[in-house]
């Protein structure tokens, strides 16, 4: 399998595939971070995660439409506005959903699966009604298109770099929020012992709502970023949900570091194998590997020791 290529080509291949893997890694981390907060920290199985992402994508679409018809001179910068709006709106929807539905189900985690699955169907139908069944095209400002040519063969897509930068910023943001901020500390306290946290004066209901909203908001930003690489349609969220759960579960649900490590492992493995094997075969092997490791480590790569 290596024999078809010269050594210079092989070097280029590994460089390119390494970078393709990094982009895939960024995408995985963006997909999974929001879910890691909701599923990992709160124990809520959110099947509507993909639909929250698509909401972010649709908001980006609406923003691009608005800018191109009303503020064409500012079109280059619309993406930042879109991401901010995506965060705010999906977080608000997340808070609403938590208040209406999720908070009644904290003691029955499996029921959250059914409830959020229903929610995902409702949202899909809503998107279909509002935006139509067809996919919408989100146009990008020119500066986000194209690529830097490093050598003849190696070219680096600009939007790939953008997604990577965004991932780094958001990951650090989430890390700081969970480790240093008041909300993060309270969240971790509530997760570890709800009754005790309540007893020391933490408003557990409010913490739940904010945490859930934060997870949804990150999904919205991820969806906004994915308009650069993927499709925006009513059912597009379904394309992400399996991979997202895979990343979170493999990493060890309760650990954010685990999510990052797992995204890295899966993306690099898949990206390298994709080059030398067929695309479908790479996926199968990746899944087999994940299943194998999960059999040895049922809690995932990184598991927190929590007293249950």
């Amino acid at each position, binding site marked *: 399998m290596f024999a078809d*290529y010269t050594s210079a*080509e092989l070097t*280029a*291949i590994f460089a*390119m*595939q390494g*970078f*393709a893997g990094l*982009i*895939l890694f960024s*995408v995985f981390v963006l997909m999974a971070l929001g879910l890691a907060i909701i599923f990992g920290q709160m124990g809520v199985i959110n099947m509507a995660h993909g639909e929250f992402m698509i909401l972010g994508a649709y908001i980006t679409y609406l923003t691009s439409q608005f800018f191109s018809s009303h503020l064409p001179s500012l079109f280059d910068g619309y993406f930042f506005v879109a991401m901010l709006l995506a965060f705010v709106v999906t977080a608000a929807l997340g808070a609403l959903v938590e208040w209406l539905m999720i908070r009644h189900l904290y003691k029955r985690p499996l029921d959250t699966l059914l409830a959020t699955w229903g929610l995902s169907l409702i949202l899909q*139908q809503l998107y*279909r009604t509002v935006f*139509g*069944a*067809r*996919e*919408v*095209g*989100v*146009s990008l400002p020119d500066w986000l*298109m*194209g*690529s830097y*040519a490093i050598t003849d*063969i190696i*070219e680096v*897509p*600009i*939007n*790939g770099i953008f997604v990577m930068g965004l991932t780094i910023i958001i990951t650090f943001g989430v890390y700081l929020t969970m480790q240093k901020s008041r909300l993060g500390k309270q969240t971790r306290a509530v997760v570890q012992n709800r009754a005790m946290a309540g007893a020391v004066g933490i408003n557990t209901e409010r913490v739940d709502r904010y945490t859930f909203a934060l997870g949804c908001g990150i999904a919205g930003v991820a969806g906004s970023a*994915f308009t*650069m*690489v*993927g*499709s*925006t*349609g*009513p*059912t*597009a969220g*379904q*394309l*992400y949900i399996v991979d997202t759960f895979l990343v979170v579960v493999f990493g060890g649900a309760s650990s954010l570091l685990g999510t990052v490590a797992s995204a890295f492992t899966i993306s690099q493995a898949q*990206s390298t194998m*994709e*080059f030398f094997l*067929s*695309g*479908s075969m*790479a*996926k199968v092997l990746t899944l087999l590997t994940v299943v194998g490791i999960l059999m040895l480590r049922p809690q995932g790569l990184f598991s927190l020791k929590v007293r249950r």
Partner: protein
Amino acid sequence: MQKLKTSGVSNLLRRRVLKGMMALPAAMLVSQLSFAASPSTAEVNTTGLAVTDDTVKVGILHSVTGTMAISETGSVQAEKLAIEQINAMGGVLGRKIEYIQEDGASDWPTFAEKSKKLLVKDKAAAVFGCWTSASRKAVLPVFEQYNGMLYYPTFYEGLEQSPNVIYTGQEATQQIIAGIDWVTKTKGAKSFFLLGSDYIWPRTSNKIARKHIEKLGLKVVGEEYYPLGHTQFNSVINKIKLKKPDVIYAIVVGGSNVAFYKQLKAAGIDMTKEKPLVLTISVTEDEILGIGGENIQGAYAAMKYFQSLTNTNNQEFVAAFKERWGDDIVIGDVTQAAYLGPWLWKAAVEKAGSFDIDKVRAASPNLELTTAPEGYVKVHENHHLWSKTRIGHAKADGQYEIVYETDELIEPNPFPEGYQ
């Protein structure tokens, strides 16, 4: 009683005369009706289909929910438009068409169940529907068992022929061989990279493509498949860059297309430069809406229909379609093929003078449609259409500019020898 028994012979005679006199005005009435309106229902429908003196019921069976709804919406709109236009012209054999619409919900068992409902319970005289090969394969045994008539609009992989299906889209050889011939002759292409989604249609189509490319003495430098809905094409794009093919032959389907073309463009492959050029048979104007014209500008597509066709049939069709369904709508290859369904059925029924499935089927071969938006089509003995293949060049506004069309109609050949 006594009177009647006068004589056996005269009685018989009198009855004959009476019967004749009774029949005379009735016969006049019937012939008048057939001039003014329509032949009697008993005459045109001997098999108990849902036909009354004024109406005939047909079925529309597509997915309006689920993942395929994105694609099938256009077909439903086209079929409804054709039915409305036919009704405005007085219907079929003097009967207005009424449709019963069922939702296949992107789920093949549901398609089978709904087709059975349309045939057995609703007694539909014809059904217009399905999109994926999987849904067609699911309904096929139902249509054969209950003797229904299906008008199937999607271009597909071939290797099928049923007495109960009229295929109004192209089968694989019509699209693929003409497309590859064009790109080798006009663009001097020598090497190809085949890429597709991982299921039956792309795999069968690429098999035919590969056979044909190798028959021409040219090279396939790569062949790749990715799962449906795949959104990360960076690896395969790297591979393409390394192999430097003349042609990227891409038959990725659905939402994956959006990801593929956006990433292709972002990776610095400029499709307007013609090397490597992209040739596809799976991106219609519908898909471009999601991809964005600027992301696919410069790619070529081989199909039988593009919205930008300039013949008068098509101009009228596009205008009517936009008037009915909105100005910002686009019309792709399959939408046009779906529009042909009701018209072909009408022509077959009128030629047969009957709604009966067997007679409609017998009347179908050699039917011509001179009013088709794609120009002119003819039904082959094998239930596929003779059609032209055209090459469209994608423009930034999401439309194709037609750069080539075959001189002659291409004969459909669902079972190509040596290509299986």
